[in-house]
């Protein structure tokens, strides 16, 4: 089942779109149709791709156990721990600071299930395939997928929203984060899909090497000659394989079967030295293959070169920053959303002073009437004094751009396009409580979901 809610394809072609496909719609990742319990469905979201959703269309998440500096957080398979306990102290999982410190806004701090409602199963529900039913400590039953208990996020307001977490690879320094859960991509066994900032990158499963296609080829036909084959290695298909969906097989030379995706022959690049490389796309006419591209940002944003890759910039090229925060309580609640305590961000951006924060990390102001064609980009009104969402029609509210329902920022230290002076700025290199540049590609540092 494929269901697109609230995202109608009016997205312009970007630099990685397969030429043989339609120009005016976002190509979506196909997925394996697995048996699932009644009342659930799959929604192909604009960035995360296919995710499971409940009957209301709310995305499902899990919370896999993660090794942090001073212990583990998250859930083991079969053992849901997210409950109604309201933690008042940090757990001391972030070296070098101790536990036992009273958390910010402790009086109003929600419990885990206030923020992550468990996906409850009816008493007569039956397990189906990878979908199983777990017993919770409060006597209720909870759905699980692949053993991990399932939750929804209060941040998601409607079908297609995935604001609770992302599959984009980060580091464990970011804390134990929730991940959207979805069906596996419908790809042959020798391939894999990796979520990077620009989309769902197609790779070779065993090696992680990127997969490319060429404008020099035609749909269903390889024109890669001997010289071309020196640098570009056809992705060979097993003898007995059959075409299916987006996947077909061409005979690139007598007796040699080569995979094609959306009709275009696939290759790896001999000179790629690391997995999930985008370097081959610098060669004219060659492109990385994606099962699904990330939706482009709203009109006017730009791509800018840095000394390590590319970042998103505003119309003048000034780098856009994302603020990351996960708190240090046992239940590891996010603190990077305007609805969460702002004390974390204010500490990093201005020593606790909101005014200094506005100077050093200004919001990216959105024009009046600015619109986004995707779920992942939006605008919101922010109270600059509190950093929280402004009351409707508040006179001093700032109308700002938001990514994944969180405001994005500038760095006042940046002076020209491509400057990234405030990248990795804050606790644990900007991953735990701090800022990172909006990376689209990083050939060295492992940002943007790529390998290092």
């Amino acid at each position, binding site marked *: 089942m494929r269901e697109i809610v609230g995202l109608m394809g009016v997205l312009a072609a970007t630099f990685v779109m397969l030429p043989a496909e339609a120009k005016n719609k976002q190509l979506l990742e196909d997925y394996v149709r697995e048996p699932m319990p009644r009342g659930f469905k799959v929604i192909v979201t604009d960035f995360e791709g296919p995710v499971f959703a409940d009957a209301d269309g709310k995305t499902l998440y899990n919370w896999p156990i993660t090794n942090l500096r001073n212990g583990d957080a998250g859930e083991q398979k079969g053992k849901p721990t997210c409950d109604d306990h309201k933690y008042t102290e940090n757990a001391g999982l972030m070296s070098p600071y*101790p536990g036992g410190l009273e*958390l910010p806004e402790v009086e109003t701090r929600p419990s885990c299930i206030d923020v992550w409602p468990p996906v409850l199963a009816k008493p007569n529900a039956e397990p189906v395939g990878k979908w199983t039913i777990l017993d919770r400590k409060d006597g209720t039953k909870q759905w699980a997928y692949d053993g991990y208990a399932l939750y929804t996020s209060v941040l998601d307001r409607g079908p297609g929203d995935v604001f609770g977490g992302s599959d984009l690879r980060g580091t464990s320094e970011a804390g134990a984060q929730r991940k959207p859960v979805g069906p596996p991509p419908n790809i042959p066994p020798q391939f894999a899909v990796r979520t990077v900032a620009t989309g769902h990158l197609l790779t070779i499963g065993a090696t992680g090497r990127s997969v490319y296609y060429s404008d020099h080829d035609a749909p269903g036909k390889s024109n890669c000659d001997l010289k071309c084959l020196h640098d570009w290695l056809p992705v060979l298909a097993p003898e007995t394989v059959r075409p299916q969906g987006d996947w077909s097989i061409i005979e690139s030379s007598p007796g040699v079967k080569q995979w094609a995706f959306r009709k275009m022959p696939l290759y790896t690049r001999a000179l790629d030295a690391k997995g999930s490389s985008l370097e081959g796309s610098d060669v004219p006419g060659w492109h990385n293959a994606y099962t699904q591209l990330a939706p482009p940002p709203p009109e006017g944003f730009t791509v800018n070169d840095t000394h390590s890759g590319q970042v*998103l910039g505003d119309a003048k090229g000034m780098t856009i920053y994302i603020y990351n925060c996960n708190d240090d309580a046992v239940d590891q609640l996010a603190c990077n959303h305007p609805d969460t305590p702002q004390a974390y961000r204010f500490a990093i951006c201005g020593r606790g002073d909101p005014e200094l924060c506005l100077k050093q990390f200004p919001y990216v102001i959105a024009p009046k009437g600015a619109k986004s064609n995707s779920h992942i980009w939006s605008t919101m009104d922010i109270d600059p004094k509190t950093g929280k969402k402004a009351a409707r029609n508040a006179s001093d509210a700032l109308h700002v751009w938001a990514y994944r329902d969180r405001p994005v920022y500038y760095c006042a230290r940046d002076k020209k396009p491509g400057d990234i002076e405030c990248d990795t700025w804050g606790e644990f290199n900007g991953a735990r409580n701090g800022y990172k540049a909006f990376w689209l590609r990083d050939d060295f540092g492992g940002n943007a979901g790529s390998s290092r």
Partner: protein
Amino acid sequence: MQSYRSVRPAVAGLLGCALGVATAQAADSPLRAGTIGYVLTAKNVAIWQSPDGKVECPEGINDGPREQFKTLYPMENGVRYKFVETQLEREGQIWNPTTEPEPKLHFKEAQGTTAIGMNLDGKVGRNDFTSPDGEPGIDNQMYRVLGCVDNYRGPDGSYRHFIQDYMRKFNYNRFLVELTNVDDLTNDDAVDVTLYRGKDPLMVDTLGAYTPGTTHRIDFRWGKSFIYHLRGKIKDGVLTTEPSDVTFPESQARGVPYLSVRAWRVKLKLTPESAEGLMAGYTDIERYYNSLGQNWSTHHRSYGAEPMTSEYRSMRKNADGYPDPKTGENTAISMAWEIKFVQAYILHEERGEQAISSVRGAGAQTEAVGE
């Protein structure tokens, strides 16, 4: 800057040059057609240490973040602290440092008159050091700041370990030096020196030693801002370069920061297989400090007991170069690094010389491409 919607592959492709091609052609000398290249294999902040550390650090080694936290917020008498007033207060100070006194913390600056480094201003000043081999006028005020910080002290300071570890693991840090117009590797009064960022890994032999004669490609795609063209000379086998402002990548793999050094220069003993010596200049304090935090989280700095906020105050106090035109306060501090290279063949896949800014007269400052 490109429109997001119009991004297209912008750079010409590789020429299919595989690593090791040039190595296979190695003749008797790697100095060919007046050109020889080197790749950086070791870099350490220059820290002179007396045998027992008592000369430079009579009060001992500095406390790090963990110890400072305990001093500021003692866990006694059942006191309960708030996250905002402790951890976030400390992180707020780290990322927004001031020069206000830290009355409860005591920072120990390195003492004495001996330091490793170079005479950057050609003078022998009141605060200058004497080098271990007796050269006066050594400018290395950063030694005052970092000399008693465990992170930087040999043989096992955490920084010393990790910077070497990531020197090898992380191609972002690849630092290439190419000498051209070299008539003689022992004496030549005018050689050209070009700095590049490479994009290939360092090679080691089975004993773990860096191998001369490997091939390194230049990163013309992203590394243009790290390309500098300098003038130098070789006397008695020692290369020196004229001062120039440079930036170079320095990462512990947690981000991709860089350092900015004014009046940077090298003093390197050259052989056909290696180069070893010092680089020195006036380090931009804000960039150095920010890079430190961007590279090393508080957790990581705790390994080597590195107290950033205290160091910031000391850097600003001991700053000795490049006064701010408005405030008059020095913005840079003299510093030196001990560095080692092995010979390398530098592969010009694309002739990027058009992108290299030229030297504008003797002693002129260079500027980075794209700056």
